[in-house]
C-alpha cells in the first residue's frame, strides 16, 4: 500500500539532518498558521495560486526563488563550516550527510533558485516591456510555474522523507546507478529534474511565442529593449537545451527503475553518453542563467546613467552569438575523458570564442556610462560589482578552456571558484539588482536603499573572501567535494572561505531586513508616478503596480527606448481619448492541480507506491485533456472599469487584494503586512 515507505525513511541518521527537517516542517506550519490566522486562504487561492496573470506568476516564481536561496545557502554554509573544521577527521557532518548537502546545494541553486528567479523576472517584465497584456499562453504559464514548484517541493521533501542524492548535482553515472547509489536520493533528483525540466521547456515555448507574436505595434525586433532580447535568446535556449537533461534523467530513471543499461558500468552501458547529454543541456544552462542578468544590467546601466544604451546592435548580436556558441562547447566539461587532441582543441577554442561577445558586452556597458550622469544607487552597485568580479571569472574560465591547463585544474576547487565567480556576480547579482529595480513596479513602493547597499557590500566582499581562497586551494591540488582531508596546509584557506560564507550570510540577512523595513516604510517609499527611476523602457509608462491588463490602450512604438523618447517629447502620460473593453483570461485551478498531481506522481514513483503513481499520472493527463477541450473562459473589463482603474494611479499595494477594486485607503485589510510594521 505504501510501497517502500516505512518509519526508517525519517532522517534519524544525523541529528543535524533531523533538525533541518524539523525546521522545514515548522516553517511550513508557521506559514499555514499565519494564513489561517489572518483568514487569507480563500484570498491566496483565488488571487494567487490559481492566477494566470503573468505578473502574479512572476512574483510567485521570485518568492519560490528566495525560499530556495535560503535553503541552498544553508547547504553552502554547512559545507564551508564542515571543510573549515574537518582536518584529519569527519567534522560535524557524517559523510552520508555532507555528500547529500553538496548535491542538494548545486541542484537547488541552479534548478530551483536561479531558474525560478530569472523565469520570475522574465515573466513579470517581458510582457510589460513589449506592450502586451499577458503572455501568449497564460494557462501554460501557470502550469510551468506549478511544475517548477512541484520539483522544488520534491527536493524539500527529500530532507524529511528519505534522503537526497549523494551523486552531486550532475548525478554522474555509474555512481548514480542502483549498485552504488541505492535508496531514494537519486530518484528524488531524477523526478525533481524531470518535473521542473518540463516546466522550464514550456516556459521557453511560451516566451518564444510571446516575444514573437505579442509585441506592440511598431516594435520591430531591433527595437526590443535589451532585457527582452536576453529573455528571447534565453527562451530559445530553454526550448532546445532542456530536453537534453530531461532525456538524460529519464534514461537514468529507466536504468534504476526498469533495470536497463544505458549508463551502467557493465552490460554495455556507457556513462559518457549520459555525461554528453547532461552537458548538452548543462552548458547552455549556464547561459540560460546568465543572459537574463546581462539583459538586466543593460537596462540598469542605461537607466542609471540617464543615457541611451551604447552599442545596442552589438549587444543584440553578442547575445545571439553567445546563444549559438553555447551549444558548441559542452565537451569542455570533460577534456580529461581522453578524447583526441583535435577534439579537445576544437572545444577549447570554441569556448574561448564566447569570451569575445562577453567582453564586448562589458565594454558596451562601460561606454554607456561614458558621458552619462550616473546615479550610484544600489542597482548600480550590483552592476559595477558584477563587472569587476565577473571579468576575473571570465579569465579563469578561459584558463580552464585551455585543455592542458584543465588537465591540472579539473575537479579541483579552482573549478568551483571559477563557476561561482561566474554565477554569483554574473547571475545572482543581476537577479538581485533586477528584483530591487522592478520591485516598485510590482508593489508600488521602492526598497530601502541603505539596506540594499549594505547587502551589496556584504555580498561583494563576502564573495571575494569566500571564493578567492578556493582558487588558491585549486593551486594546492585540493579536489572538490571532500568531506574531510589530511593536508594541514589547506585548512587556513578553508577557514578564510568560511569567514566569507559568514559575510554572505549577513548579506542575505540584509536583504530580508531590507524587505521588512521597506514594507514598514512603504508610504515614505511610495512610487506615486509609476516611473521612480526615470527609466527608459515601456514598463515604466504604467502605474505601479501595473493594472491587471498592463496597458489600457496598447501603445504605438516609435523608438528602442520608447519611454525616454516620449518623455523627451512630453507625451509620456497623455490619457487616451476613450477606452475599449478588454478581454482577459479567467483564473483556473487546473495549473495548480496539474502541479500537485506531478508532485504526487514523482513522490509515488520514488517510493514505489504504484497505485498512487497511476492515479496521479491519470490525473495529469485527464486535467490536460479536459482543459484542452473546453473553450478558454474569459471575462470583459468594461471601459468604465478601466477608467476607474486608470484613475487609481500609483501607490503601495494598490489593487493587491482584488485587482478589479480600488484599494486606496483600505490598507487595513492587509493584516499580514500591517502586522510587520505600524
Amino acid at each position, binding site marked *: 500500500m505504501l510501497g517502500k515507505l516505512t518509519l526508517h525513511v525519517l532522517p534519524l541518521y544525523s541529528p543535524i539532518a533531523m533538525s533541518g527537517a524539523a525546521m522545514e516542517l515548522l516553517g511550513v506550519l508557521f506559514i499555514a498558521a499565519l494564513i489561517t490566522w489572518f483568514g487569507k486562504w480563500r484570498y491566496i487561492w483565488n488571487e494567487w495560486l490559481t492566477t494566470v496573470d503573468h505578473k502574479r506568476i512572476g512574483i510567485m516564481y521570485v518568492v519560490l526563488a528566495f525560499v530556495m536561496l535560503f535553503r541552498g545557502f544553508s547547504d553552502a554554509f554547512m559545507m564551508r563550516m564542515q571543510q573549515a573544521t574537518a582536518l584529519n577527521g569527519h567534522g560535524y557532518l557524517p559523510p*552520508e550527510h555532507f*555528500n547529500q548537502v553538496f548535491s542538494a546545494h548545486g541542484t537547488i541553486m541552479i534548478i530551483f533558485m536561479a531558474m525560478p528567479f530569472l523565469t520570475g523576472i522574465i515573466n513579470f517584465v517581458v510582457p510589460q516591456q513589449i506592450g502586451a497584456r499577458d503572455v501568449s499562453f497564460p494557462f501554460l504559464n501557470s502550469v510551468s510555474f506549478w511544475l517548477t514548484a512541484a520539483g522544488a517541493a520534491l527536493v524539500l521533501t527529500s530532507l524529511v522523507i528519505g534522503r537526497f542524492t549523494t551523486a*552531486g548535482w550532475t548525478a554522474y*553515472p*555509474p*555512481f548514480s546507478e542502483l*549498485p552504488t547509489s541505492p535508496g531514494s536520493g537519486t530518484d528524488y533528483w531524477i523526478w525533481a529534474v524531470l518535473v521542473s525540466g518540463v516546466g522550464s521547456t514550456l516556459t521557453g515555448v511560451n516566451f518564444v511565442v510571446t516575444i514573437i507574436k505579442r509585441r506592440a505595434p511598431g516594435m520591430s525586433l531591433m527595437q526590443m529593449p535589451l532585457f527582452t532580447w536576453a529573455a528571447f535568446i534565453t527562451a530559445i535556449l530553454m526550448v532546445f537545451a532542456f530536453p537534453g537533461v530531461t532525456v538524460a534523467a529519464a534514461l537514468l530513471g529507466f536504468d534504476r527503475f526498469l533495470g536497463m543499461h544505458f549508463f551502467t*558500468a*557493465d*552490460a554495455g552501458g556507457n556513462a*559518457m553518453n549520459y555525461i554528453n547529454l547532461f552537458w548538452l543541456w548543462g552548458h547552455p544552462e549556464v547561459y540560460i542563467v546568465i543572459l537574463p542578468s546581462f539583459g538586466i544590467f543593460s537596462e540598469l546601466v542605461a537607466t542609471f546613467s*540617464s*543615457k*541611451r*544604451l*551604447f552599442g545596442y*546592435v*552589438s549587444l543584440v548580436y553578442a547575445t545571439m552569438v553567445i546563444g549559438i556558441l553555447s551549444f558548441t562547447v559542452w565537451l569542455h566539461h570533460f577534456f*580529461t*575523458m*581522453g578524447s*583526441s*587532441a583535435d577534439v*579537445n*582543441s576544437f572545444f577549447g*577554442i570554441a569556448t*574561448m*570564442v564566447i569570451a*569575445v561577445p562577453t*567582453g*564586448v558586452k562589458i*565594454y558596451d556597458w562601460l*561606454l*554607456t556610462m*561614458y*558621458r552619462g*550622469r*550616473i546615479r550610484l544607487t544600489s542597482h548600480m552597485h550590483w552592476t*559595477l560589482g558584477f*563587472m*569587476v568580479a565577473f*571579468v*576575473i571569472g571570465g*579569465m579563469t574560465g578561459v*584558463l580552464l*578552456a*585551455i*585543455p*592542458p*591547463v584543465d*588537465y*591540472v*585544474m579539473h*575537479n579541483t576547487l579552482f573549478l568551483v571558484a571559477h563557476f561561482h565567480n561566474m554565477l554569483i556576480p554574473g547571475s545572482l547579482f543581476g537577479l538581485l539588482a533586477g528584483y530591487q529595480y522592478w520591485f516598485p513596479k510590482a508593489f508600488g513602493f521602492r526598497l530601502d536603499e541603505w539596506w540594499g547597499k549594505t547587502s551589496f557590500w556584504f555580498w561583494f566582499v563576502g564573495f571575494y573572501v569566500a571564493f578567492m581562497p578556493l582558487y588558491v586551494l585549486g593551486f*594546492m*591540488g585540493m*579536489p572538490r*567535494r571532500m*568531506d574531510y582531508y589530511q593536508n594541514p*596546509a589547506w585548512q587556513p584557506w578553508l577557514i578564510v572561505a568560511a569567514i566569507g560564507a559568514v559575510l554572505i550570510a549577513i548579506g542575505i540577512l540584509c536583504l530580508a531586513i531590507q524587505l521588512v523595513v521597506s514594507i514598514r516604510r512603504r508610504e515614505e517609499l511610495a512610487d506615486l508616478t509609476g516611473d521612480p527611476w526615470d527609466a527608459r523602457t515601456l514598463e515604466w509608462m504604467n502605474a505601479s503596480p501595473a493594472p491587471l491588463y498592463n496597458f489600457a490602450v496598447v501603445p504605438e512604438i516609435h523608438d528602442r527606448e520608447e519611454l525616454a523618447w516620449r518623455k523627451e517629447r512630453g507625451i509620456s502620460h497623455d490619457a487616451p481619448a476613450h477606452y475599449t473593453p478588454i478581454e482577459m483570461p479567467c483564473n483556473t485551478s487546473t495549473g495548480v492541480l496539474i502541479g500537485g498531481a506531478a508532485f504526487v506522481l514523482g513522490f509515488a514513483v520514488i517510493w514505489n507506491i504504484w497505485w498512487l503513481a497511476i492515479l496521479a499520472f491519470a490525473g495529469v493527463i485527464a486535467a490536460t485533456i479536459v482543459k484542452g477541450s473546453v473553450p478558454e473562459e474569459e471575462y470583459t473589463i468594461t471601459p468604465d472599469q478601466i477608467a476607474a482603474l486608470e484613475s487609481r494611479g500609483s501607490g503601495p499595494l494598490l489593487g493587491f487584494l482584488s485587482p478589479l477594486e480600488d484599494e486606496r485607503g483600505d490598507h487595513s485589510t492587509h493584516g499580514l503586512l500591517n502586522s510587520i510594521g505600524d
Partner: protein
Amino acid sequence: MRSLYRVVKNLLPLNINLSRAGALTAFMAMALPLAGCTGSSDYPVIFPHGPDAITERDLLFIAVAIMLIVVIPVFVLAVWLPLRYRASREAPDYDPNWDHSHRAEVVIWLVPALIVCAIGSLVWIYTHRLDPYRSQMAEGKPVVVQAVSIDWKWLFIYPQQHLATVNELVLPTDRPVSLRLTSTDVMTSFFVPGLTSQIYAMAGMGTRLNFQPGPVETYTGRNSLFDGKGFPDQKFPVRIVTAENFKNWIDTVRKAPLQLTPHKYQMLSKSGAMPHPLHFSSADPELFARIVKGEHSAASMIVSSRSK
C-alpha cells in the same frame, strides 16, 4: 588535420618553449605571497616538477598575462567612469544620446578577438604537444603501468615485471611512463598534481596517460572525481626514483608474500579504502585487459553465479 597542425606549428615561433621570461615574471609575482604562507611543496600546480606540469603551469601564466590586456582596463574603467561621470558632478560633457561609435565598436570586437586568436593558437599547439595519448619521443623503453581504480584505492599493475601494488606508484626517473587506466565500476580521475595531466578512469574502457616522470621527487596522487564516502581517502604516494632505486624497489616487491590471485582481486574490490600500500609479488599481466572487458566486475560475477 595533421598537416594543418604542422603548418601552424612552423608559422609560429613557438619552439622557444613558451617565453620563459614572461612566465617567470608572472609566476614570481604570484608565487611570492603564496610562498610566504607555506612551503612551495604545498602548491604543486604553481611549483611543479614534472615536465608536463611545468609546461601546463607556464601556459596558465602566459594566458593570464595576455588576458590582463582586456581585464585591467575593465577594472580601471569600472571605478573611474562612475566617479568621473557621477550625477552629482553634473559633468558638462553629458551626452544622453551618444549611443554609437564605429571606432569604439571595432576596438571592442577586435581586441578580444585578437586575444582569443593568440590564446587559441596556444591551445591548438599545446593541446597536441601535451596530449596524454601522444607517444613519447624520449629515449628509453617506457615503463608500462596499468592503473585500476577500485572503491576507494588504486591498484597498479606492472605487467613487464609481473607485479602489482595497491596505493603506491613508483617510477624510474630516466624512462618515459606509459600509464593505462580503467575502473572497476564508478568513474574516477587519476590526478597527481605537480607531476602530469589528469585523466579519467572509466569502467569498460581503457584510457592512456603517457608522460616523462621528471626529476627524483615524491608526490601525492589521488582520485579527484567524487565516488562515494571513502573519496577523501583515495590517495597514494607517487615516488619518482633513480634507476637503481627502482630496481631495488622491484626486488623488494618481488619478495612480498602476497600474490594477486583472482580471489585476492575479488577481496580487494570489496575492502574499501586502504591506508597503507600493499605489494603483490606476482600478478597476471592479462588481468587489466580482463577488467576492461568487464570479466571481473562485481556485477558480472553476480550474473555468472546466477546463470549457474
